């Protein structure tokens, strides 16, 4: 029974390690939360205060009420843009993936191979031409610019095709005998059976877009159209010098919505991210 005995000390080490790692992860966030309740004087003090002596809502209030900060609008914009983007990616990628996975047409393999090669081209090379296109279409400062340019997501097609191929064909054959056409096979057989894959891809692209900074930063320019990550950059450049707790409050407040979603859907999010990561291999 040697293995049984060796388990206990091993687990002690595991717990110690996980606790230390957990502290490394949590401590920065807790400090930010704690200092959000401090005054400027209290934050600029040595030794640094971990717990506020007289907790105050002043900094949080300031972030929420300053004329040049619109966290409410930025959150709304981020949610609308990320939702729209996710919908666009799924609506474009799923039918394309179905065609590649299930339909015979000339050039199937050639076209799919071409798409795969373009995965190697990083999106940065498209930034300048797409920015100029947004400007010419007068889409700057609109949701169109946040939703459409990245919607043709080749990785999404690749991932969904992998999953669609694995769906057993007999169900589709049965549907065909019942009179289903191509759309019926796609809509009533493939999509319902691939719900996990669609959810996984949806979560993945939503989170990516929700936290994206570069593209929203260059295609939006008025206070009302910014997204949360861009708003935080603005908050930082306007207030970091003079009023630090406000900046921390902004970081904390902006993170609350996504953390609430995470607490509710932790299992789905962890599974979705894992599935997408593994599917990309």
């Amino acid at each position, binding site marked *: 029974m040697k293995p049984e005995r060796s388990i206990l000390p091993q687990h002690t080490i595991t717990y110690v390690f996980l606790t230390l790692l957990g502290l490394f992860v949590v401590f920065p966030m807790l400090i930010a939360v704690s200092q959000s309740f401090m005054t400027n004087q209290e934050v600029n003090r040595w030794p640094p205060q971990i717990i506020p002596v007289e907790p105050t809502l002043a900094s949080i209030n300031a972030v929420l009420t300053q004329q040049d900060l619109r966290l409410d609008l930025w959150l709304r914009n981020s949610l609308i843009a990320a939702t729209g983007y996710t919908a666009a990616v799924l609506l474009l990628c799923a039918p394309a993936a179905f065609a590649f996975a299930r339909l015979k047409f000339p050039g199937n393999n050639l076209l799919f191979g071409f798409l795969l090669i*373009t995965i190697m081209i*990083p999106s940065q090379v*498209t930034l300048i031409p797409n920015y100029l296109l947004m400007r010419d279409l007068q889409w700057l400062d609109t949701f169109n610019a946040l939703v459409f340019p990245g919607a043709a997501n080749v990785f999404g097609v690749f991932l969904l095709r992998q999953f669609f191929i694995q769906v057993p064909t007999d169900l589709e054959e049965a549907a065909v005998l019942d009179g289903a056409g191509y759309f019926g096979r796609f809509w009533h057989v493939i999509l319902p059976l691939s719900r996990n894959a669609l959810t996984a891809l949806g979560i993945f692209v939503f989170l990516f877009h929700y936290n994206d900074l*570069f593209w929203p930063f260059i295609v939006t320019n008025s206070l009302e159209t910014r997204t949360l990550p861009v708003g935080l950059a603005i908050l930082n450049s306007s207030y970091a010098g003079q009023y630090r707790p406000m900046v921390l409050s902004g970081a904390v407040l902006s993170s609350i919505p996504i953390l609430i979603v995470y607490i509710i859907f932790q299992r789905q999010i962890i599974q979705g991210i894992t599935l997408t990561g593994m599917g990309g291999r």
Partner: protein
Amino acid sequence: MSANQRARLTAASRFSISLKTREILAAYTFLAPFMVFFLIFVVRAVVEAVRMSFYDWHILRPSRPYIGIENYIELINDNVWWIALQNTIVFTALTVVGTTIVALAAAVAVTRPIRGQNFFRVLLYTPSLLSVGAVGLIWVWLLNTQFGIVNYGLSFVGARPVNWLGDPGLVIPSLSLTSIWWGFGFPMLIFIAGLQGIPEQLYEAARIDGGSSADLFWHITLPLLRPTILFVTVTGVISHFQVYGQPFIMTNGGPGRSSYSLIFYLYQIAWTAFRMGYGAAVAVCIAVIMAALTSVQFLVLSRRIEY
């Protein structure tokens, strides 16, 4: 068999060509929406970027003369480009190595048969959900020279205050540390999936042969995880090579140009100096470097399949 089905089967046997054509038409219909977007925002954009890189294209100037490869010649002689490239390489190397080690250790720990497995898994992934904005703002203050918690912690072991983000030699490692904290969750999940794919019998057999847990890790876990480690490091290289938000939020490229990354520099050229032609040349060069890195990924990963 209903009349409908019989009709379909007869049609299938008699007009097999028209059925084939129908399938082809259906395929193109399913592909069309994606391809329209793909052609406009990917194919057209890439071609346009290459074309623009041969022009002196300033956004505020109406005349855009063709200048051949002058932009590329400028790039070769551009000091800042080489500084940014070097910074990006150092940042990527530090971050990928650090992230992989932390993620692997975390994954091994949370896949042990312990209580609270799921709690730790969920907890350790949390930073990855934050935006680079939130992460940057939190860490700038933690790393603050005068009032930062990191220097406070170090003062207990007698260290003098360190200027983490203001010292040219320390700024890249500091951004790396921040990025490891932010990003180790995703490779951790990949490693967890990889670890769960290793058959438990292998460990049992090794334990019966008297292997210690260190033996088990070095001789079973690590070799069997090799493909996963490759995947994590290579995708990590590609994603960290595109670093932009951390220097943008935390240092604005400074001190001096010590934390300019390639994408940060691209931003400066195209959206601060408005030099779209030169920016396109820079973007094309970044793309070529990254395409080379991605090809390495494909080669390395496809070799794995032969095993």
